[in-house]
């Protein structure tokens, strides 16, 4: 058998090299003893992180502005001494409600520009009344000047990035989805200065539903051609109407936006708009990097989603909730999300996007089945293998057992 050849190694000579090993413990001991017992724990990075993501903010409504007969803008200002976090125009906050002892959350795009937050420590959200809606009814009854609003944020990923987006952004808005473009337009003129150019194609049902009409006109007028707004009416058209009519289609986009092939599209509105615009953008061969869709949010009526298993409607299942060592059985309606079932039972999990994308409510399906809304499905690949899902956008399709992790 061949003799093993040893590595030839000499740093300061065999003896000194060996000695340096045996000296190591003593060296370490001395090294430790030369330290100070006053460990500096100051941490500016943690302070920055806390500024960027301050957690729950308690604010009050300092102003309520009627935008249209069915739309109001609420101006919020922190009352807990917190400074509003830096955000990107286009991001949203998650408002936390406690309604008759039931906790829930809703995402709302910030409609004011980052500049307002920096200068006045205020931000605005613009809400459209949803007659009969659980949260909307509460807001219309209770949100008056001086009322308290709890929220956290910023969240969301529809905002300008110079490495990804074109210099020309085309905003496609439907109804109150237009709020993000008010923030972006103001930020273009009084903030980041980006994007270089924005064309907003804004669809409304009727002329009286158009939000921020005058404000957009004023912004466009002083933008040196950087901002233009094209209104599209799908309902009754007034006699003196000079804008577009009908729905926003591929043909209309191609007609209005000569450079549509290279522009970046941001789409914000109701689910029906997303479905239509996806088809239009496909038809126009707009690449994925050039399209950004705002999150879907709470669905008013999930049976309208063609992919929802229609024969599942109208049922009530049993939801067994596991939390720590606790176990509880509650009812779950087949056309409401698992998150809503938990909220109804006073077992709310923390949610932000209400769309399935952010993953904040990640829970585990231990038994049974759910239908996870496929649009903006943000469940991780490995999570899918083990039954993890996002309750804010998942509907029960059988009796289910769910392990929840972080309750609020």
């Amino acid at each position: 058998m061949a003799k093993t050849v040893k590595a030839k190694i000499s740093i300061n000579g065999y003896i000194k090299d060996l000695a340096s090993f045996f000296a190591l413990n003593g060296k370490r001991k001395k090294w430790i003893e030369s330290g100070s017992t006053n460990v500096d724990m100051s941490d500016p990075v943690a302070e920055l992180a806390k500024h960027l993501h301050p957690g729950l903010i308690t604010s009050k409504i300092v102003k309520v502005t009627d935008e249209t007969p069915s739309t109001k803008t609420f101006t919020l200002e922190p009352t807990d001494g917190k400074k509003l976090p830096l955000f990107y125009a286009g991001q949203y906050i998650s408002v936390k409600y406690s309604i008759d002892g039931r906790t829930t959350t809703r995402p709302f795009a910030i409609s004011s520009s980052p500049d307002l937050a920096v200068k006045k420590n205020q931000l605005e959200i613009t809400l459209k009344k949803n007659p009969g809606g659980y949260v909307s009814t509460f807001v219309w009854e209770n949100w008056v000047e001086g009322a308290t609003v709890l929220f956290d944020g910023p969240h969301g990923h529809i905002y300008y990035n110079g490495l990804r987006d074109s210099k020309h952004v085309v905003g496609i808005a439907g109804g109150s989805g237009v709020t993000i473009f008010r923030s972006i337009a103001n930020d273009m003129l009084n903030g980041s200065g980006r994007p270089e150019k924005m064309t907003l194609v804004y669809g409304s049902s009727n002329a009286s539903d158009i939000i921020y009409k005058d404000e957009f006109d004023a912004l466009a007028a002083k933008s040196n051609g950087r901002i233009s707004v094209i209104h599209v009416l799908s309902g009754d058209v007034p006699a003196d109407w000079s804008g577009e009519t009908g729905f926003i289609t591929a043909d209309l986009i191609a007609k209005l936006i000569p450079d549509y092939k290279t522009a970046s599209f941001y789409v914000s509105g109701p689910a029906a708009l997303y479905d239509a615009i996806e088809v239009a953008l496909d038809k126009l061969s707009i690449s994925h990097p050039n399209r950004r869709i705002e999150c879907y949010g709470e669905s008013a009526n999930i049976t309208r989603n063609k992919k929802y298993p229609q024969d599942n409607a109208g049922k009530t299942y049993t939801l067994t909730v596991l939390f720590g060592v606790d176990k509880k059985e509650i009812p779950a309606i087949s056309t409401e999300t698992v998150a809503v079932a938990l909220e109804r039972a006073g077992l709310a999990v923390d949610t932000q996007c209400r769309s399935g994308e952010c993953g904040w409510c990640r829970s585990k399906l231990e038994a049974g089945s759910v239908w996870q809304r496929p649009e903006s499905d943000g469940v991780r690949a490995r999570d899918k293998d083990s039954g993890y899902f996002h309750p804010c956008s998942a509907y029960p399709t059988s009796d289910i057992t769910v392990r929840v992790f972080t309750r609020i």
Partner: protein
Amino acid sequence: MGSGVGGLSAAVQLALKGTKVLVLEQHNMTGGYSSSFIRGRYEFEVSLHELCECGDGKDGHTYGGVRKHLANAGVYPDLVCVPEAYRVIFENHNLDFTMPFGIENAIKAVAKVVPQDEEKVRNYFKLCEEISNALVYIEGCPQMKPDPMVMMTKHSSFLRTAGYSLGEVHDSFGFTPLTEDILSAYYGYITRNRRDVSFTVYGLLMYLYVRDGAHIINKTSHGLAVDLEERCRVLGAQIETGVYVAKMLVENGAVVGVQTADGSKIRAKRVLCNCQPDVVYTKMMDKKDVPDNALKLCDKRVAGASLFSAYVGLDATPQELGIDSYEIFFNFDQDAKRVYDATKVWTKYITNMSATCIDIAIPGMTGEGRCQIGFTYLLDPDAMAKDGVDPSIYQKNKEEFLDHLIEMYERLTGARIRGHIEEVEVATPATYVRYTGVPKGNVYAYEMTVVDGIVPRVNNKDAEQYIKGLDFVGGFGRRAFGFCSSITNGFDTAEDTLLKLKEAK
């Protein structure tokens, strides 16, 4: 307390042996840095997560210790071997070098570039092998306490290098500068300071990766966190997220449990912390309960590195974009001191970076017709604290910095990614603080200098058990940081804990 892979590995091993385990995690999910996140159509690996010691025992490969530890506990992550050790581009050497797996292949590859150094490189890998053999012996000894005579007779090269830094050992080989640079290229995995890092740590890492290959986890490192967490639950461990530990419960100088932020007191025989020790000492304990030397050790230790990481989702395949390597190290400067000093400044002078395209190792992982690149740049956790915390320039800084990295990436590889960027996200030290609570966004725990490498830490583990009932796992543990170190550390510390629980009985 804390559910990074260190905490979870310890938990799974303790639960396996029938110990009652409670894991408390302040974030809303487990895994720590072993995680992923989703943007649009993309699931991004949060960081470069390569494991060594994960050989599968087939085709002449060693059955790796990390894989063995996990398998013994019933944890079977989906491990995939990456194609090569590394590709390194030295702009000023005008050299684009790929280090293959397999010791003989590696020696040949270096010899091809620097023929006159072949025997030196062979001798170097021989030394690294001897370091590894010594470690295998030490790990086989009860409580990792080896017989000094065996060490002297059989493993003297381990002893003779343990007191030296990487720079000192490399100098003794008399390599040409190019060889030295090639063989040092892995340094970014463990240190910002390639001269002063402990040779033992580097030599071992180099040897194990090159011999057995480097493994990553299919469906991102989040997969390992899920594997560990699931197994913990099956074994009866209780895991609670969204629970913040506010205080240690101390009686007669010993930790006897924790108090959570909501005031609940939980008693435990032992507490294992997967976090930075000074946080526990200064924020969760009274100063009178913390021995001076525990604090002094924290004061003396050098913070490892935080990261500037960027995640880019691309709407084309790597082939379409001209990306042909899994991971590339870009070394713009080989002056170790200049490189180290540059890491102390926030976004000023880039001396090196790494870019990883996971889809080269796992084709199609990102999705059909897509791929992702992760950019990583190491920096001193204090760099941002000093220069980068002004929120008004934070957003701009992030974008400009990534713009710069992409510019260099395209220039040196010829790949074209601009125009295909569908999703982009940047993590800074502030991001790491946000998700883990670690001071200053530290990712690399403590620098493994000669006095604070793995050897002195393990040798002194009993002397440095400053507080009864309290241990540290994960990157701040005795095996130091690193994806596989954290796992091994968790298992080791669990074994120690079992022993101490038995003694207490």
